[in-house]
C-alpha cells in the first residue's frame, strides 16, 4: 500500500486549510461529514439555474425543480435497495425520521403494557423518542446490554425481546463504540415476536452498502449531512404497508389531497408526510452526494476506511494510558474510535489536539446512558471517512503523544 493511498481529499476543498497554523486533519466525521466539490456545485447550480417551488408549478423552472426533486427519491430508493421510491420520505435528518416513527406509528400502535426495546448504546435521537412514547402510552422501555467489548449481547437481545414487544429500535452502527449491530438477525427475532424493527442508520449509511430488504427492518432513518450531503435533509424509509397506516404529522402544503372547511383528505405516502415546502436544494445536494459515493462504490468506501483503521488502531493501542472503547480488533470496527487518555478530561485532550490541527470531538456524544454504562463522564472520539488517509491517522497518533507529554506534569 503506497503512502498517498487516495486522492479523495482533493475533492474536498475545506480540507485544504490551516487551523491553528497546522494543516487541518478533520476527524469529526461521525458528527458531520465534509462535502465534495460536486455536492456544493450541485447546490449552487440549482440556485443559479433551476430554483423554484416543486409540484405546484406549471412553468419551466418549477417543472425542472420537481423533476430533480422526485428523481432523487428514486436515486435514494436504489441506494438503500428500497422496493419502491414511494417508501422514501424526505425529513430534516435522522432525528426527525425516528421521531416521526415514534409519534405516528408508535402513538397509534403501542399501548399500555407493551414493551419497546432499545439498547444501552443508543444515541439520544433513538432513545428519547421511545422513552417519551413509553411515558405517553404506558409502555415499558427496556434496554439490551452490551458485551465487554461493546458489541450487543445477543443473549440479552433474545431475553429482552418478548411477545409483549411492540417495537425494537437499534442503531445499525454505534456513534461511540464503532460496532455494527447484526440487524438482519435481530429483525428476524423481532418479527418472530410480532414486533417491528426500527433502524437508526445515521452512522452506517455513510460508510457501507445498505440493503434495507436484506436487513429485514421495517423502518430505516438516516441523515444527509453525515453522508457528504447538505445539512437539513434526511431520509426515512418505511415499508409501504406500515406507512399507509400512519397518520401524517405536519399539515399543509403538498401533503394534502383535498381541504374542506372542516375535513381534509391527505395524499398517499411519501407525500402525506412532507408538509410545507421541502429542503429542495438539500434534496438536490443529497442526490449529488449519492452519485459521488456510488461512483466510488460503497464497498470501496468501506475498504478504504478499514485500511486506515487497520493502520491506526495498533499504534493507538500502543500508547500507554490510552483506553480505547469498543472492539480491539480492527476487523470488527467502523471508523469511529472513542478513547480516553490517562486521567485527562477528554475536553482537554480535544483542545490540545485542535492546537495540533486535529479536529476530534469530546463529550457524551449524545449518548449519556452509554457513558453511565461505561462509567465515564465523557470520551474523546476520532472518526474517519473516505477522504482521511493513513497520514491523517499518523497525525492523530502524534498529537495524542504530544498531548500526553504536555500534560505529563499532571492535572486532575
Amino acid at each position: 500500500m503506497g503512502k498517498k493511498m487516495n486522492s479523495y481529499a482533493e475533492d474536498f476543498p475545506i480540507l485544504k486549510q490551516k487551523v491553528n497554523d497546522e494543516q487541518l486533519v478533520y476527524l469529526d466525521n461521525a458528527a458531520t461529514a465534509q462535502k465534495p466539490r460536486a455536492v456544493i456545485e450541485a447546490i449552487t447550480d440549482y440556485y443559479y439555474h433551476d430554483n423554484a417551488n416543486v409540484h405546484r408549478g406549471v412553468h419551466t423552472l418549477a417543472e425542472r425543480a420537481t423533476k430533480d426533486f422526485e428523481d432523487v427519491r428514486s436515486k435514494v430508493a436504489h441506494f438503500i435497495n428500497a422496493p419502491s421510491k414511494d417508501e422514501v420520505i424526505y425529513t430534516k435528518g435522522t432525528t426527525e425520521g425516528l421521531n416521526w416513527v415514534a409519534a405516528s406509528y408508535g402513538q397509534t400502535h403501542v399501548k399500555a403494557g407493551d414493551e419497546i426495546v432499545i439498547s444501552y448504546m443508543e444515541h439520544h435521537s433513538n432513545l428519547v423518542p421511545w422513552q417519551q412514547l413509553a411515558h405517553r402510552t404506558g409502555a415499558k422501555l427496556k434496554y439490551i446490554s452490551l458485551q465487554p467489548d461493546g458489541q450487543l449481547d445477543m443473549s440479552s437481545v433474545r431475553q429482552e425481546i418478548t411477545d409483549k414487544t411492540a417495537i425494537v429500535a437499534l442503531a445499525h452502527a454505534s456513534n461511540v463504540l464503532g460496532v455494527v449491530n447484526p440487524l438482519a438477525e435481530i429483525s428476524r427475532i423481532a418479527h418472530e415476536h410480532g414486533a417491528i424493527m426500527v433502524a437508526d442508520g445515521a452512522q452506517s449509511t455513510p460508510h457501507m452498502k445498505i440493503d434495507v430488504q436484506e436487513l429485514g427492518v421495517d423502518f430505516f432513518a438516516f441523515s444527509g449531512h453525515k453522508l457528504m450531503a447538505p445539512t437539513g435533509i434526511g431520509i426515512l424509509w418505511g415499508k409501504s404497508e406500515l406507512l399507509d397506516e400512519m397518520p401524517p404529522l405536519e399539515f399543509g402544503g403538498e401533503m394534502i389531497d383535498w381541504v374542506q372547511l372542516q375535513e381534509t383528505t391527505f395524499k398517499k405516502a411519501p407525500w402525506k408526510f412532507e408538509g410545507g415546502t421541502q429542503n429542495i436544494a438539500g434534496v438536490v445536494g443529497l442526490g449529488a452526494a449519492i452519485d459521488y459515493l456510488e461512483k466510488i462504490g460503497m464497498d470501496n468506501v468501506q475498504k478504504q476506511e478499514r485500511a486506515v483503521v487497520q493502520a491506526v488502531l495498533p499504534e493507538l493501542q500502543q500508547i500507554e494510558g490510552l483506553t480505547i472503547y469498543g472492539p480491539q480488533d480492527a476487523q470488527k470496527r467502523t471508523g469511529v474510535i472513542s478513547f480516553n487518555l490517562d486521567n485527562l478530561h477528554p475536553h482537554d485532550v480535544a483542545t490540545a489536539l485542535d492546537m495540533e490541527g486535529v479536529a476530534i470531538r469530546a463529550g457524551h456524544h449524545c449518548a449519556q446512558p452509554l457513558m453511565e454504562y461505561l462509567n465515564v463522564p465523557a470520551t474523546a472520539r476520532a472518526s474517519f471517512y473516505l477522504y482521511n488517509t493513513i497520514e491523517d491517522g499518523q497525525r492523530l497518533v502524534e498529537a495524542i503523544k504530544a498531548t500526553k507529554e504536555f500534560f505529563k506534569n499532571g492535572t486532575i
Partner: protein
Amino acid sequence: MALSKLENLYRQMILEHATHPHHHGSLKKADQDIELRNPTCGDVLTLQVELKDGKVADIAFSGSGCTISQASASMMTDEVVGKTPEQIGKMVVAFSEMVTGNESDDVDELLGDAAILAGVAQFPARIKCATLAWKAIYQAVKADDKKSTVGFLRHDE
C-alpha cells in the same frame, strides 16, 4: 510545535488548582446547594454555600469536569469567601467579560488569582468550562434573580 500555544490556557497555576483543588468536598451546613451541568461535555458541578452576616462564610464544590472547569471552580471558591452577593455579582460579570475577551483594568483586583483564566478567551470552545462555577455561585447567592444581565448566564448552551 503548536502545543506551545496551549500554555496560554493551561498555565502552571491552573494545572495546580485542577490537580489539587481548593474547597473540594462538601459542607455540613449549607444555605445553598446547587447542581449545575454542562450538557455539552458531561460536566457536573455541585456547589454548597454557607452564608453568615450577608457574606459567604464557607463554600465547597464537587463533581467532575475538565481541567479548566475544575481549576476555575477552585479559584472561584478562594475568591468569594467573605464577599457579599453584590460583590460577587460584580465579580461574575467581570469574569464573564474577561473570558469573552473584554478584560477590564481591574480584573486582577476583582478576581485575584482567577484573573489568570483570561487566556480562555482565546479558546472559545472552552468558555463554558470556565464559567460553569461562576454561573453556580451567581445562582447560589442571587437565586431570586429571574432575568440575569450576565450574557453567559442566559445562554444555556
